[in-house]
């Protein structure tokens, strides 16, 4: 073996000068002094809570398209991040540039707590036309005159009915009114000693909870939960009471506890109560069309407008909408790029890609006639058409305490339908809870 003529001192010297050169080169490169053009790409993150692969892929694809069209920017999608974590990141001063929130509560709560950047300045500066959206989705996003979000996609409700069972029972068409729905339901419900095996229609089935559904029934009976003009809750309004009394009678007719036992047997996917024939007609969202495709492809069903109260024919063809929103958390380093991204998401293929992945519908009106979407399924096309012509309301009012509203209503509706409280007492109680919480939130807003 030949010994290399290197002393220890030489080796240390060489290593020292090499590392010095590397450091200097790195500093020069980072300062853009090496003569090559500096890569000034702005990187920012978009967080969302979805964790199923088709949506992750769709979002990543949309981000890739955005990046390709904006060589100076790179939006990095991060998936599976729940709102609570986004909230903590925003509170800790390290929010992403863009976040996806749901208008039912979190959006207005975040807005009222000062966690979101108002978008009015961007709308004004870029003359951005908000009329391009289905208006209920914009109403969701406006809090005290300030826009806080642009819609990403939306959902709506319609009446699903099982055509096979209708034909077997000799029913020619779906019910037009809620009263007809009750009569039809009685005609086709089945009960044995083991309890109900089929109930024609249950008003709250298909909603996330009784509280979520009550807003729709209040509306169908001519009521509302919130007065935008007075900035006050109107839960104990007389029309809402009529709605709750109708629901109370409905559930007490079947026995609220018996209904609880019956609904506890409801499953999801192929065990969905509508697919399994346990419910013959129900109010549900457009996602049920996609579920039927996946889990019960041979189901003979159709969709129809939501039944209205016979005293209020003006609410024929009504529905409520929900959805996802794109927001810019306050404290983000790249609000302009965030705005550029969320407006871009309303253009090109992005709304179609997202609607197909999330199984919802675009909130941009011009996409409601998009052939790629209308050709998916005739029932889904019916939803898209319903959004163009129907009486569309946001599911939740934008208040600082909307996140509390669903649970408060659920407590009241449960108490009334189970007979542990009278309908007026249940609504009065819900009203008082919401007023108290609203007053506290307003105290916060009055603080400098």
């Amino acid at each position, binding site marked *: 073996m030949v010994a290399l003529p290197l002393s220890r001192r030489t080796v240390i010297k060489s290593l020292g000068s090499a590392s010095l050169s590397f450091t200097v080169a790195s500093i020069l490169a980072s300062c853009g002094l090496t003569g090559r053009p500096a890569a000034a790409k702005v990187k920012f993150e978009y967080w969302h809570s979805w964790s199923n692969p088709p949506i992750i892929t769709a979002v990543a694809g949309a981000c890739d398209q955005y990046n390709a069209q904006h060589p100076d920017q790179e939006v990095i999608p991060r998936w599976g991040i729940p709102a609570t974590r986004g909230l903590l990141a925003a509170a800790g001063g390290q929010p992403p540039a863009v976040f996806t929130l749901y208008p039912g509560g979190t959006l207005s709560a975040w807005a009222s*707590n000062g966690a979101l950047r108002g978008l009015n300045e961007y709308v004004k500066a870029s003359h951005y036309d908000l009329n391009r959206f289905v208006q209920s989705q914009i109403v969701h996003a406006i809090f005290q005159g300030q826009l806080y979000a642009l819609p990403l996609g939306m959902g709506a409700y319609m009446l699903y009915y099982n055509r096979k069972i209708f034909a077997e029972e000799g029913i020619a068409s779906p019910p037009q009114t809620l009263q007809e729905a009750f009569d039809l339901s009685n005609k086709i419900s089945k009960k044995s000693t083991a309890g109900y095996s089929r109930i024609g229609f249950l008003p709250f089935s298909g909603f996330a909870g009784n509280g979520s559904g009550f807003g729709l029934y209040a509306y169908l009976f001519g009521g509302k939960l919130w007065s935008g003009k007075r900035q006050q809750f109107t839960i104990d309004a007389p029309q809402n009471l009529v709605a709750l009394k109708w629901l109370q009678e409905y559930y007490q007719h079947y026995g609220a*506890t018996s209904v609880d036992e019956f609904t506890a047997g409801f499953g999801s996917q192929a065990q969905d109560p509508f697919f399994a024939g346990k419910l013959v007609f129900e109010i549900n969202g457009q996602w049920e069309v996609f579920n039927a495709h996946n889990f019960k492809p041979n189901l003979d069903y159709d969709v129809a407008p939501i039944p209205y109260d016979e005293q209020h024919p003006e609410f024929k063809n009504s529905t409520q909408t929900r959805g996802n929103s794109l927001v810019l958390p306050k404290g983000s380093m790249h609000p302009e790029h965030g705005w550029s991204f969320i407006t871009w998401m309303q253009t090109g293929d992005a709304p179609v890609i997202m609607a197909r992945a999330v199984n919802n519908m675009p909130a941009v009106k011009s996409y409601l006639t998009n052939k790629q979407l209308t050709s998916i399924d005739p029932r889904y096309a019916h939803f898209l058409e319903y959004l163009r012509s129907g009486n569309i309301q946001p599911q939740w009012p934008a208040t600082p305490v909307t996140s509390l509203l669903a649970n408060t209503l659920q407590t009241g509706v449960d108490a009334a339908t189970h007979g542990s409280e009278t309908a007026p007492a249940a609504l009065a109680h819900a009203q008082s809870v919401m007023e108290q919480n609203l007053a506290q939130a307003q*105290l916060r807003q009055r603080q400098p």
Partner: protein
Amino acid sequence: MATIARSRAEASAPVSVAMRRRNTRVGVLFALPFLIGFLTLQVYPLIASFYYSFTQFNVFQSPIWIGGQNYAQLIHDPLFWTSLQDTFFMVVIGIPIQLVLAFLVALLLNSKVKGIAVFRTFVYLPTVTPIVASSLLWLWLLNPVYGPINFVWVHLLHTQGPGWFATAAWAKPAMIVMGLWGIGTAMIVFLAALQGVPEQLYEAARIDGANGWQRALRVTLPLISPATFFLLITHVIDTLQIFASAYIVASGGGGPQNALLFYAVYLYQNAFNYLKMGYASAMAWLLFIVIVFLTLLIFRSGRRWVYYEG
């Protein structure tokens, strides 16, 4: 020889002050990671939560001092009382059932039969199941429509089975039934205590004419009372903080007519769903006071019924 004698003398010499200081310094340095973690992640949040309980605080903005309003509002909040009621139901009804059953099973597993180790393992095994898995399993077992328990109920009794988690009346009993699945830990403690009861005491009792019931009442129960005391305290503290299983069973809500709205679930809802951190902090402090009070009460009552040998 001289070297050995010197080193022995050094070893027996009193440790110098400098050495002691150095030992203390090194000891503190070793304990420092824990101390820093304890002070910043436990003590500071504890004190901060006490301060926040007198404020309106939503995480994003600085807290507003509102004095005792959170505490006053709690007293007028029906859901607070509902959550307390639900939780105390589990403490007052659930814990005695769990402890009695754990004791009876321990008695059975204390017998000298072939394969007893296998039976003990079977009883203990469920306690190592993750709470999410066991909760979902019990949701299925107790499903009123397609659950196997109601299937057997309907076929044996020819009446409709209970609604379990689906109905307000049966939701908490269902939670108790689900809790019985995890009696393994209490059973092990009882078993260890039972094995520590001296055989000669039973012999003496037998000679005195005590029957089986009297031996259990006068010999077994007093001698295992320290174990019962320990289990009672730990079960009360755990049950007052019941959260994960209820959260999973009721999908984050309060269950049918808020029958599963346990205290910690309502606290969580206020903190993270409604961003009422001040209100939630006040709830946490009230819970802390209740736990301290009940623990002291059990300790005080223990003087009357806990027997420590020697």
